[in-house]
């Protein structure tokens, strides 16, 4: 579960990226995080990933208060989260296989298990035949899928995605959303930050809507929402 309790994030520059945000995401739930760029989506995700710390309020992940988490335990918490970044964050100095294997190596998996799990994850995103290639040789959509394979390879209980379909055409976006849905169906808690409202509309999941750092919507969207205003009603 992910819980925000009156969370405010103020950067050193004085800019308030999040103001008094509270919500709870149950284990096994899937939700979207939406809002204009600059509304605080990335900041919210960064707080969950412990790339930033809250200025006020509490962030709880898996019954752990992140404010009380020592630096030493940060890596362990991060291993519970698969993160799909907008810019993939793949490493171009190694093969697709080695990119996907990285979370397993970091977590200290036995070498015997690594091959099996990596191939399983690559198979899931239908890129098993490209395991030996350099990610640089792949298309944007394929790179994104490699990023997803890496995010789920160690079967984390949480899957976070920051604009995972930002640079993709609608068909690819739908495919990737379908993947997230499948992970959710096997029990993974999924939170996807996106401004692709059409996509959200089709998926019928809960949406957290941010505007200027405040949570202004927290519920399932109507069936035909096309504008912010429609979603604000929820």
């Amino acid at each position: 579960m992910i819980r925000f309790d009156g969370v405010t994030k103020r950067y050193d520059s004085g800019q308030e990226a999040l103001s008094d945000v509270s919500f709870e995401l149950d284990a096994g739930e899937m939700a979207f995080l939406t809002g204009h760029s600059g509304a605080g989506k990335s900041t919210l995700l960064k707080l969950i990933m412990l790339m930033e710390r809250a200025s006020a309020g509490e962030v709880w992940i898996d019954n752990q208060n992140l404010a009380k988490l020592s630096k030493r335990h940060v890596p362990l918490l991060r291993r519970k989260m698969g993160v799909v970044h907008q810019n993939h964050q793949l490493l171009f100095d190694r093969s697709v296989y080695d990119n996907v294997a990285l979370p397993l190596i970091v977590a200290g998996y036995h070498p015997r298990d690594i091959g099996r799990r990596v191939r399983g994850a690559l198979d899931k995103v239908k890129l098993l035949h490209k395991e030996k290639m350099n990610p640089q040789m792949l298309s944007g959509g394929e790179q994104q899928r490699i990023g997803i394979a890496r995010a789920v390879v160690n079967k984390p209980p949480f899957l976070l995605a920051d604009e995972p379909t930002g640079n993709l055409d609608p068909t690819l976006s739908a495919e990737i959303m379908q993947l997230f849905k499948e992970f959710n169906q096997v029990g993974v808690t999924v939170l996807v930050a996106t401004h692709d409202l059409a996509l959200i509309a089709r998926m019928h999941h809960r949406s957290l809507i941010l505007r200027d750092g405040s949570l202004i919507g927290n519920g399932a969207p109507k069936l035909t929402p096309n504008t912010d205003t429609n979603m604000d009603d929820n």
Partner: protein
Amino acid sequence: MFKSTKTNRRTGENRSDSGQGINTSNHSLASRIQSWRSHHRLVAAQSIRRLIVTPISSLMTMLVLAIAITLPAALNIAITNVAQLTGQTNDHVQMSLYLQSGISNTQGLKLANQIAAWDNVSSTRYVSPQKAKDSFKSMEGFAEIIDSLPENPLPGVVIVIMSEQSLTVNDAELMRDKAASLKKVAVAKIDLAWLQKLHAIIGLAQQVAAVLTALLAIGVVLVVGNTIKLSIDNRREEIIVTKLIGATNAFVRRPFLYMGLWFGIGGALIALILIHYCKYALTNAIDSLSLVYGTDIVLTGLGFTNSITLVLMGAILGWLGAWLAASQHIRALEPR
């Protein structure tokens, strides 16, 4: 995993069975240790491969380290050799008492025993005129001269070895005067001043070598540290991504520590080669020198134990430099 919908459902069930279910650490301690060891092996090999990929720059760094290691090592070896060359006279201060002519061997021996009881004397030895003549004859060029003399011109000599620790220059001079005043003694000679100067010079050289060793050791640490810092800067992105995935600082640091270790060992090995080459080159020169002077000078090199120590020191310094740089820079590299 996730191979078919069937597997998916099964995985789902497994997850609900185990409550929290999806567990990142569902492997045993033994298997963790095994994977930790295999990661060390992997990282050790990878960091060597990284050095080989850029052979010129790796070699340059190692050469700099090798020179920094060779200088103090060679200086220490040189001092050891000089100290050894002067070793026999160096360990003890020696006084020679040339006896009056006509003193018999029995009298000479008696005198030697008598002086052996003096304060600050560690031992005495009586050299009879005949013995002195024999030892002169064994020296290059003296045989003919000695033989051409009608009678043995050499007096008996009592050689007094003084215990050095308690001896000051003053004490030694007092002893010389005391010995010279003895009736049987014609001349008392002591080579104290020269020895003390030599001592002082060797002591000074040893101190200089120690300071130089310390400075160049720091130099090795800094060179490795700087190289590792550059390497960290080059792999910034990788470090941040790895940290985001849940890598500990120790995990991220590991390849850099190995790199430092290899730099240190590589530098030390090149230094060994340089030192051995220098010794070889000098041995040739010294051999021809010994030939001219008819003496036998043997150069002492590093030896096996010292060679191992040198490589070990290189490894430790390289590792230390890498550790200092890595722990500082990697902690600062947090995903933002």
